[in-house]
């Protein structure tokens, strides 16, 4: 019987060794691992395209074996990646990943500048403003790949029904509201949004008898937004100023919060959290056809297929004569823990170059490289025939709000959670009776305490 036991153990060991033996040939190449999931990339069509990109790369040369590791979902990706780091098995390349995802793993990224110089990689093919988004005190943390400027998505049918002119299709254009020519700023948008908000009796918030508990159509929403992105629509500002050693919420951020509070609870043109979770605004607020305007980044074209109405794009309004466009940006990054950074850089240039057109297509990204932008626009034109203002997209990039709304500050994840909690408080039922000024001061104090937990430790 003991011989049988030995035989079973031998058989198990042989089965366990089989994959290792079959991979022996692949191991002779330098292995570069690519982790996907911190941003987009886990959808079936994206997985197929990514696998094709890997196959093409591996077939094109004999030095590097590119291996892809796709997280089961966006939600699972953070834990999976943290575990890989903790196990000392960090991937070489991670992406596509935005600033939020990248900053959640701050201090993990490799400075690419030495590799750009070593391999004479041409950075001039990207707009300088976009390259600068990735420059930090530590160096060049990424190379631009996909960008998503915020735009005003508007429902043409709702505007037509209200007999209101469409919002401006270019920067520095005015808007005519009730016969009066006005600057296209956030106050104008608010007045316009009020006219587009309608209750069950067909009344707007300007009419006596308007019922805020029976709203059937809303004028405006900052859809799927981080609070810092909303704040940045009035101007960018660093959360923490290292020279002052303080967290400062500037006056224009406080004003933005007052603007939002009024929109939610006094003028009722922004849906609160209860409305946003209701059947009225499903599958998503703007796509439900019951919201006239939404400020949301370009990637929202991913999820607008359910909207039966005609829609188009307008420019984000100005604040005190200046445009501030919160812009999301995704790219691939190399980790500091990479054992083969040179090979990883070669793969990175492949992903940003030869593989980029197909990957951008499946990710729904707008190319950072101007030479790829025309094709991307054409593709969108075919998918969304009602949209005529695609030229706003590249123009908006010039007004990208800086510093970025996901820019790093000490104790980043905890601080961002505090911002999220504030937003949840403001948009939830708790917002209605909140002492806004006191809560803003509390937010500032809490952020100061959060930063202080790590600064000078």
């Amino acid at each position: 019987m003991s011989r049988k036991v030995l035989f079973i153990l031998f058989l198990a060991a042989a089965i366990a060794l089989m994959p290792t033996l079959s991979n022996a040939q692949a191991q002779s190449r330098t292995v570069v691992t690519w982790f996907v999931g911190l941003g987009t990339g886990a959808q079936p069509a994206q997985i197929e395209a990514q696998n094709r990109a890997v196959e093409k790369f591996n077939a094109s040369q004999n030095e590097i074996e590119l291996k892809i590791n796709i997280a089961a979902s966006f939600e699972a990706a953070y834990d999976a990646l943290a575990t890989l780091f903790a196990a000392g098995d960090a991937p070489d390349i991670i992406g596509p990943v935005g600033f939020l995802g990248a900053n959640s793993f701050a201090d993990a990224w490799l400075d690419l500048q030495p590799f750009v110089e070593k391999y004479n990689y041409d950075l001039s093919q990207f707009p300088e403003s976009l390259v600068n988004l990735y420059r930090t005190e530590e160096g060049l943390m990424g190379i631009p790949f996909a960008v998503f400027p915020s735009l005003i998505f508007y429902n043409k049918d709702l505007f037509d029904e209200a007999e209101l002119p469409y919002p401006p299709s270019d920067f520095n254009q005015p808007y005519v509201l009730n016969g009066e020519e006005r600057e296209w700023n956030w106050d104008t948008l608010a007045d316009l949004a009020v006219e587009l908000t309608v209750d069950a009796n067909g009344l707007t918030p300007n009419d006596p008898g308007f019922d805020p508990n029976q709203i059937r159509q809303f004028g405006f929403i900052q859809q799927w937004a981080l609070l810092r992105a909303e704040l940045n629509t009035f101007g960018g500002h660093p959360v923490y100023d290292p020279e002052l050693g303080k967290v400062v919420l500037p006056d224009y951020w406080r004003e933005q919060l007052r603007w939002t509070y009024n929109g939610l609870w006094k003028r009722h043109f922004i849906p609160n959290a209860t409305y946003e979770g209701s059947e009225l605004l499903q599958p998503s607020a703007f796509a439900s056809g019951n919201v006239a305007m939404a400020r949301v980044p370009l990637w929202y074209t991913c999820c607008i297929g359910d909207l039966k109405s005609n829609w188009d794009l307008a420019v984000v309004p100005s604040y005190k004569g200046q445009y501030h466009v919160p812009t999301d940006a995704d790219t691939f990054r190399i980790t500091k823990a990479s054992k083969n950074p040179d090979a990883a850089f070669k793969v990175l240039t492949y992903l940003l170059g030869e593989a980029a057109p197909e990957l951008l297509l499946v990710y729904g990204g707008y190319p950072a490289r101007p030479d790829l932008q025309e094709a991307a626009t054409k593709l969108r034109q075919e998918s969304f025939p009602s949209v005529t203002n695609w030229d706003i997209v590249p123009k908006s990039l010039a007004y990208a709000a800086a510093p970025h709304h996901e820019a790093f500050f000490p104790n980043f994840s905890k601080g961002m959670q505090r911002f999220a909690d504030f937003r949840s408080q403001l948009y939830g039922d708790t917002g209605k009776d909140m002492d806004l000024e006191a809560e803003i001061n509390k937010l500032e104090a809490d952020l100061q305490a959060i930063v202080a937990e790590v600064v000078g430790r």
Partner: protein
Amino acid sequence: MTSVPTPISTNPIALRTRRQASIYEQQRRWGWIFLSPWLIGFFAFTFIPIVASLIFSFTDFTLTRPDRISFVGLNNWLKLFNDPLALNALRVTIGFALLSLPVAIALPVLLAALLNSKYLLGKPFFRLLFYLPYMVPAISGIFIWQAFLNGQTGWLNRLLRLMGISEPPNWLGNEFWIGPAMVLMGVWGVGNAMLITLATLQGVPQELYDAAKVDGADAVKAFFKITLPMISPVIFYNLILSVIGLLQYFVVPYVLTRGTGNPNGAAYFFNMHLYRTAFLFQDMGYGATMAWFIFLIAIVLTIILFATSRRWVYYAGGE
């Protein structure tokens, strides 16, 4: 002196004993082989992580920079008792437990008693009806409840408006009502406890009821004097599981509030704080401390419940 060769034993009893010993040895070996997958899994995925988490609780271990780990003594434990979010989360957890526990214990008993009643028609149908929600995956169930309880378009509030309540509560948006809303959602999970209680109820000897009837006991008296004592081991079992389950309560509030624990932190449970700390903020050392803290509370409560069980749990066959 000549040495006498030791004779080979031909004693049949000795032979049988040796053969039996060999069989036992083989059986033991095979026993270990069959147990080994579970044992390996237990050590690799449960025991070693438990020990590791205890060690982490005395360090500043973070997942992304394991190389920077250092010993911090009792700092994490001191931090825990001075962390207002942790203390508030604990208060929310205990408050919800006090609200939810009576329902989680009494409702299965009541439903089981109802389903055991000889006056109820269509018992299998009702049994299925009450058990069915237990089969719905948790996340799907939460989304269904989220739609059902929505303050604007939820069916419950529509129903309440039809009944003349013009301003029904915003169940998920109001800090007072979100607790009862989660208790209501928990009602969907009583199917299993109900079924176990029902099985026990059906095992209560009929003679006891007959004797009580002869002695003049009515149905209520029979329920409190016979049924409850006879099913008390199952109530005790449900109580232990419910207490531990409540200390682990996470998925419902996390999904329901999208991880915020709002309104106003009223759904910010201890395990949400633990999850945020360990996995979002990657402060695994402090997260491990919180895990051990809630584990110790569970141990203490379980010991107290076992100690008191001698006074109120009746084992017909002895303990």
